[in-house]
Structure formats: structure tokens, C-alpha cells
């Protein structure tokens, strides 16, 4: 009983030593205890001009940087809202991708304003709600994204990419009419 306690005390001390100075931790661990040999690398966060976070460390002579992403691969950003979100219900009829003159005018003003705020180029991404088939929604979101891109090009905006996500990247779960309306959208990313 006493020996057991003694072993435990050693293990605790070893654990404490490992926590304080990993390099000094003994290679042979007590049974049931894992010793991880490693060096402590605590990063800080660097925020890029888009407002997105990157892990960064300076090791003396080397520097390391890697993106801070969510498990699904999206960057973690502090930019708040996306530069422009076009609510589909205000610009498109159901299942259609045509934008009327008033809509094109509004979009043209948006692109010009963004350009005067320093946007060099734009990426357009179309999205739908979850009704109808996945394939149909991809095509609908693509046609709508191209229509928004065209409105931008008509006022001289440089469109560097047009993307179509259909129903695959909803903003909110498609659980109510209100949520579905939020998911029907075309996103505009402004690149400075």
C-alpha cells in the first residue's frame, strides 16, 4: 500500500516536471503513464488585411505561420459581415435568375461603392435553400451568381471567380420559412 502511494508520488512529480520542462522529462515513464517528448509552441494570432486569423510563432531564427480554420476548412475571421449579400427574394423570382433593371441598378451602385472603398476584384458565390434537388440547386445558384457577376462587370468591376454552392453551404439550418429565405442568397466577396 505504501509502495503504491510512493509510485504515485513519483508519477505526479514526473508529470509536474513534464509540464514545467518537457525536454527534461524522463524517457522511461512509470507504467500507465505516457511521456510526450516535445517542445512547447504557443502561437499568437496574426490578423490578415481581410480580417482572417493565422497562427504565428517565432522560434528565434525561424518563423511559422498556418491558417486558423474551422473543422470544415473555412477561415476564422473577424471581419463581421460578408462584404455583400444579395437576398435572392429581392432580386430574383422563384426559380429564375433574371435581374430586372432596378435590381441591376442597385447592384451596379454596390459594386461602384465597393470599388471606391478599395476593392480590386470580386468573387461571387450563389446559394439556395434546400428545396428541390441538389443538382437543380447547384445550377440555379450558378445562374444567379453569373447574373450578379454580369451586373458587376457592366459597371467595370473585375470578377475573379463565380462559384455555385446550391444548398450545400446554408447560412442557417433550413428549418423554417425565414431561415430558408436567409439561405437563398448570392454572396459577394470584395478583394482589396
Amino acid at each position, binding site marked *: 500500500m505504501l509502495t503504491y502511494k510512493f509510485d504515485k508520488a513519483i508519477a505526479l512529480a514526473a508529470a509536474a516536471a513534464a509540464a514545467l520542462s518537457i525536454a527534461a522529462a524522463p524517457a522511461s515513464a512509470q507504467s500507465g503513464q505516457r511521456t510526450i517528448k516535445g*517542445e512547447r509552441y504557443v502561437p499568437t494570432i*496574426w490578423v490578415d488585411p481581410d480580417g482572417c486569423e*493565422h497562427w*504565428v510563432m*517565432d*522560434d528565434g531564427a525561424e518563423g511559422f505561420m498556418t*491558417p486558423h480554420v474551422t473543422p470544415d476548412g473555412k477561415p476564422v475571421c473577424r*471581419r463581421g459581415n460578408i462584404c455583400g449579400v444579395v437576398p435572392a427574394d429581392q432580386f430574383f423570382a422563384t426559380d429564375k435568375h433574371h435581374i430586372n433593371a432596378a435590381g441591376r441598378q442597385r447592384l451596379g451602385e454596390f459594386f461602384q461603392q465597393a470599388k471606391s472603398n478599395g476593392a480590386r476584384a470580386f468573387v461571387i458565390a450563389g446559394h439556395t435553400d434546400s428545396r428541390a434537388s441538389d443538382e437543380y440547386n447547384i445550377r440555379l445558384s450558378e445562374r444567379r451568381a453569373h447574373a450578379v457577376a454580369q451586373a458587376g462587370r457592366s459597371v467595370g468591376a473585375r470578377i475573379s471567380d463565380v462559384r455555385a454552392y446550391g444548398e450545400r453551404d446554408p447560412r442557417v439550418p433550413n428549418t423554417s420559412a425565414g431561415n430558408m429565405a436567409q439561405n437563398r442568397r448570392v454572396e459577394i466577396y470584395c478583394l482589396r
Partner: protein
Amino acid sequence: MLMRKTLVLLAAAAAVSGCTDAFDKTRDQHAGDGSSSHLSNMTAGIWVDPQGCEHWIIDDGLEGYADLRRTPDGKPVCNSNLPRNVATGPFKSGSTFADPL
């Protein structure tokens, strides 16, 4: 004289950094390039790779950092209208080093 002493001290500190974890890796460690500010304050430029995709690039004195630029959906920013294999912007602002390049 004092500066030289500081350099030697910092060099000594760098030499033992392999066996201690006392170093703050969130700061520029540099002796020699005049900067030791927090890494969150670095200024980036844009480098365009041979395929036309944009990367943030930072020259922080002795270190260099680069990372992919992404849109909120996680995809890279490509088809850049900036020239390929060229870095633009204030990416060397962290350095007081005379960079040969």
C-alpha cells in the same frame, strides 16, 4: 558597446532556446534587425504564385512568413490581376535589415 553586449546576450539566449521553453514565441526574437514587436502587428503584402493564386507575405526581419489568402467560403483567391511571381505591398515594413533581394 552596449548594443554589442545586448546582441551577445540575445545570441546566448537564442543558443539555449532548444532546451528551455522560457521563450515567448509570440514575439519577434530578433537581435540584429531592430524589431522585437508582437507578431500580431506585422504588415503583409501580397505574393502571387505561378498559378495566379494570392498569398499573404511578410518579411519580418530575419523571418519570412507566407500564408494562403482565402475567401470566407475557404477557397483560395486565384485568377489574380496582379503579376505572377511578384510580391507587392508593404510586406518588408517589419524589417530594418538591408535585404539583398
